[in-house]
């Protein structure tokens, strides 16, 4: 939905009076400063705290905003806003932000600082620290002695250290706000500095004032020359350095940079960059824009660039990356142009964008709720063996439980259950990364050693054995909780228990809630990662996840559990707070467990092992944080309202079930294609539609459409007979859908040979006046092609094409329909329609047509 176009082809008239409001980092009580972002270079900034205005002239917004000292520390409940001013314009005030009390959001202390980037080296002179609340104090210790401090910090703050680090020193970062200290950072031991690489100096453009220098070693001193003039030496926390210089650059000027660590060692080779003419400046990168957005998210830009935003050729915003605010929300039909200006250089091209209905914004990393140090232990009691990670006083083996967390009550626990692998490998150690993330967030995480059951056994009996052993581990922790003097004495909240299982372990953790009878234990959520379904294989009914939140993660390239049985559990889950299916392309069975080394993946190159882990963490943590800690905003990651910054969400296809929805048709009533779930009539015109088993075999009396369905439900397959064939589903009573979303699960039906081109469909709303408005699936994310794995499946011993028709949930906000036709009466919708506009006659699968109100927090 975006393209780069030459600026000269478009009549863009800059308006020097347009200036977007800057914005502030989160505000907390006791902060002695605020950090302002989004202003243009050299702007004058006004910060208004409950009517008291402080003014300063800023320099550059990048890389970390302008840090502005306040006349008095902030107090909770104060309202703060900011604006900017240049010689030609003054922005509006930003939307006022309320100063929060951090103890409400972080009752167990501020987030734990992170040495970022790490590790540190001997002779390092500056350290970056992230995961901070702006306005507090951050300081560094080396071997326990303070070597650097910043009072009034940014969220990511550099701290100069004096003296430089010595070899072997143990370095930690510390933080406090309102006399409330966080736990110290993990320790980083200063190692010998690595060989110093040549600094990377990308060519800047003329009239710019910002020089970006990359390839910098952690803690190095970087000396910069402009022509033959040595400018100055900067300390750098590593990775990259961005400095502001004056006067502006002229074409052909040359910059050089070297870096040094220990004085006795030689400097690095010299990096060089040459100033390029304005013609080298192109368009910035911009994230997709949703209807209703009141800002543009810039993802890629030249250092020091000012971003200009035009809506329908009218200049509407001027600011700097990453967020440029707009006065009005983006509306249907708007055409957006985004360009960048460096000094007097105007980018030769601009990015042209059409807004779409659904383009979920990227949110923070939900797996990174880093509050507590992490302790860990191995435990062994008869055949009960495993490893446990927990929130602790400090990092390390068998460190005491975190006292501050314990004072506020008992702590939830997750049990992780691996699957079948060689008993020679310690599979239970393979999820240490997820255990640590859980513990940092305040959740105990025990990984169950099931190797005793990894011999030659298969079937329902083996899965039940695994479930039984998992329950025995719960008993073990009940005993530890009840014992005096143990790390876990009176620490565990068995009313908040969750499970995660991989492969046969996934099958087992789905079994546990159906059989567990331990007093005081309540299962809140279950994650089945690439689970088997032994009962289905034995001809028994599939276990139905019931009474707890449920997620299954399905690696599309799974070379072991090739049929992705987790889809059966998703389909069968009933009476759950919510259910989630995370179908991930280019992932395999093994890479989620660090002890499972071989790549079993099929269907193309696999994501790296690290990317597998990030996917699991980024979707598992929202499940556990919501179901065990009650954290708000987490479900957005599962319902495709927000994408995690921490994972390859471009590879993720989500299904999500929310029980409070009004289900128009889920087909499982098996009441024929002629009626929907509301007993409304249906009417196909110009297409063939019928209900089929979305299953490998006959199901509830219906046959599969073809062999590509691996779930366990009934659904509809529609195939166009003419262009724009429709399927109308009547609502017996008119429904007010204003402010709600229409959800439908859909997929292109896989048939071999796969058509060269994919297909799409439109969803329509019809009101009482028979006004029908259509929105294309392309406007809400687009219909993905089937994940093709035929060649490798056929080459394997399975010798069967296991490419699947895998349905995903698409969200159609009702506002998108109204935006296209203001006459549509959302308060009185009489029917929902599906239209197949393509001529290529590909069959489409549909299920779970619902009207959904976003009632989750």
């Amino acid at each position, binding site marked *: 939905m975006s393209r780069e176009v030459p600026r000269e082809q478009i009549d863009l008239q800059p308006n020097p009076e347009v200036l977007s409001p800057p914005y502030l980092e989160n505000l907390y009580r006791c902060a002695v400063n605020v950090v302002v972002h989004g202003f243009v270079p050299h702007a004058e900034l006004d910060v208004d705290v409950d009517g008291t205005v402080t003014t300063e002239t800023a320099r550059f917004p990048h890389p970390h905003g302008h840090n502005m000292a306040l006349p008095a520390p902030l107090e909770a409940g104060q309202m703060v806003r900011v604006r900017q001013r240049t010689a030609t314009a003054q922005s509006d005030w930003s939307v006022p932000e309320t100063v929060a009390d951090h103890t409400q959001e972080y009752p167990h202390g501020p987030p734990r600082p992170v040495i970022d980037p790490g590790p540190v080296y001997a002779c390092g002179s500056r350290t970056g620290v992230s995961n901070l609340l702006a306005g507090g104090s951050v300081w560094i210790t080396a071997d326990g002695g303070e070597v650097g401090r910043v009072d009034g910090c940014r969220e990511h703050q550099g701290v100069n250290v004096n003296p430089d680090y010595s070899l072997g020193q143990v370095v930690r970062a510390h933080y406090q706000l309102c006399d409330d200290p966080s736990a110290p950072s993990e320790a980083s031991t200063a190692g010998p500095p690595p060989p110093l690489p040549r600094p990377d100096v990308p060519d800047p453009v003329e009239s710019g004032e910002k020089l970006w220098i990359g390839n910098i070693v952690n803690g190095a001193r970087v000396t910069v020359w402009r022509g033959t003039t040595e400018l100055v030496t900067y300390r750098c926390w590593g990775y990259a350095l961005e400095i502001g210089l004056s006067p502006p650059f002229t074409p052909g000027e040359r910059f050089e940079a070297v870096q040094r660590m220990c004085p006795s060692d030689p400097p690095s080779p010299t990096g060089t960059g040459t100033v390029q003419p304005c013609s080298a400046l192109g368009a910035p990168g911009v994230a997709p824009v949703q209807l209703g957005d009141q800002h543009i998210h810039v993802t890629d830009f030249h250092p020091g660039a000012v971003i200009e935003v035009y809506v329908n050729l009218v200049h509407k915003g001027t600011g700097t990356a990453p967020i440029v605010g707009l006065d009005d929300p983006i509306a249907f039909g708007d055409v957006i142009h985004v360009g960048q200006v460096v000094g007097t250089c105007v980018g030769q091209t601009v990015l042209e964008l059409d807004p779409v209905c659904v383009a979920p914004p990227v949110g923070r990393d939900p797996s990174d709720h880093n509050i507590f140090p992490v302790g860990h232990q191995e435990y062994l009691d008869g055949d009960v063996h495993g490893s446990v990670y927990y929130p602790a006083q400090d990092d390390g083996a068998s460190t005491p439980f975190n006292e501050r967390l314990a004072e506020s009550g008992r702590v939830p626990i997750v049990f992780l259950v691996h699957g*079948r692998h060689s008993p020679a490998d310690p599979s239970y150690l393979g999820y240490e990364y997820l255990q640590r993330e859980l513990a940092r967030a305040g959740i105990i995480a025990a990984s169950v050693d099931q190797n005793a059951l990894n011999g*030659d*056994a*298969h079937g329902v009996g083996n899965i039940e054995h695994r*479930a*039984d052993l998992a*329950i025995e581990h719960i008993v073990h922790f009940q005993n530890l909780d009840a014992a005096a003097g143990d790390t876990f004495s009176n620490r565990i909240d068995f009313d908040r228990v969750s499970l995660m299982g991989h492969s046969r372990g996934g099958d087992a953790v789905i079994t546990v809630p159906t059989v567990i009878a331990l007093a005081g234990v309540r299962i809140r959520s279950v994650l089945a990662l690439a689970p088997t379904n032994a009962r289905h294989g034995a001809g028994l009914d599939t276990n139905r996840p019931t009474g707890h939140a449920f997620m299954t993660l399905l690696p599309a390239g799974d070379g072991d559990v090739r049929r992705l049985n987790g889809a059966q559990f998703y389909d069968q889950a009933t009476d759950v707070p919510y259910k989630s299916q995370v179908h991930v392309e280019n992932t395999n069975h093994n890479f989620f467990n660090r002890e499972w080394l071989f790549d079993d993946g099929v269907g193309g190159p696999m994501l790296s*092992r690290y990317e597998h882990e990030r996917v699991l963490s980024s979707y598992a943590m929202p499940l556990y944080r919501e179901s065990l800690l009650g954290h708000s905003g987490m479900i957005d990651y599962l319902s495709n309202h927000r994408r995690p910054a921490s994972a390859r969400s471009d590879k993720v296809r989500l299904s999500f079930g929310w029980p409070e929805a009004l289900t128009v048709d889920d087909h499982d009533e098996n009441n024929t294609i002629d009626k929907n779930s509301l007993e409304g009539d249906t009417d196909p015109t110009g297409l063939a539609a019928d209900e089929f088993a979305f299953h490998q075999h006959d199901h509830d009396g219906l046959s599969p459409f073809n062999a590509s369905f691996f779930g366990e439900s009934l659904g509809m397959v529609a195939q166009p007979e003419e262009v724009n064939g429709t399927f109308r589903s009547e609502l017996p009573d008119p429904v007010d859908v204003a402010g709600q979303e229409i959800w439908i699960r859909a997929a292109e039906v896989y048939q071999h040979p796969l058509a060269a081109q994919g297909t799409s469909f439109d969803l329509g709303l019809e009101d009482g006046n028979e006004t029908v408005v259509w929105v294309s699936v392309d406007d809400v994310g687009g219909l993905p092609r089937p994940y093709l794995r035929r060649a490798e499946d056929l080459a394997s011993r399975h*010798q*069967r094409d296991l490419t699947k028709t895998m349905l995903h949930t698409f969200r159609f906000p009702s506002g998108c329909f109204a935006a296209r036709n203001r006459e549509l009466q959302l308060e009185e919708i009489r029917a929902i329609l599906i239209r197949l506009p393509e001529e290529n006659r590909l069959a489409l699968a549909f299920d779970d047509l619902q009207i959904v109100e976003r009632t989750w927090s």
Partner: protein
Amino acid sequence: MTDAGQREPTPRRPEFELPEIVELTIRRAPFEAPRLRHFESSLSRFDEAIEFHVRTNEPLPYLDEPPMLYVGETLVTEMRGTGEREYTFFAFDEERLEEGAPIAFGFPGTPSAQRRDSEYRYHAPRGS
């Protein structure tokens, strides 16, 4: 000059061969469900099973879904190892076992052409 690099491939899991059945005996025998500490096995409703004692030329691979025993088109998935390359499969629904049906190893869900046939066929054991 920046090198785009070339990713070092992760070792592929070796492709598994379907094992060959070198010896097979069938009998009807009392069945003892797994004894569990915390709940009753769903298999405890069976007190008898048709047992297939199988010896193979290669061990079954360490997969979560290894190849299983096909009796005709009936997949027998309940299995316990009984020795080196020796396995006992349990079938509980005798009516689904077709007299004279071929016995083969195959991955669940694969058609008959993709299974490894054996020289053995199913014949119902005598006795009640």
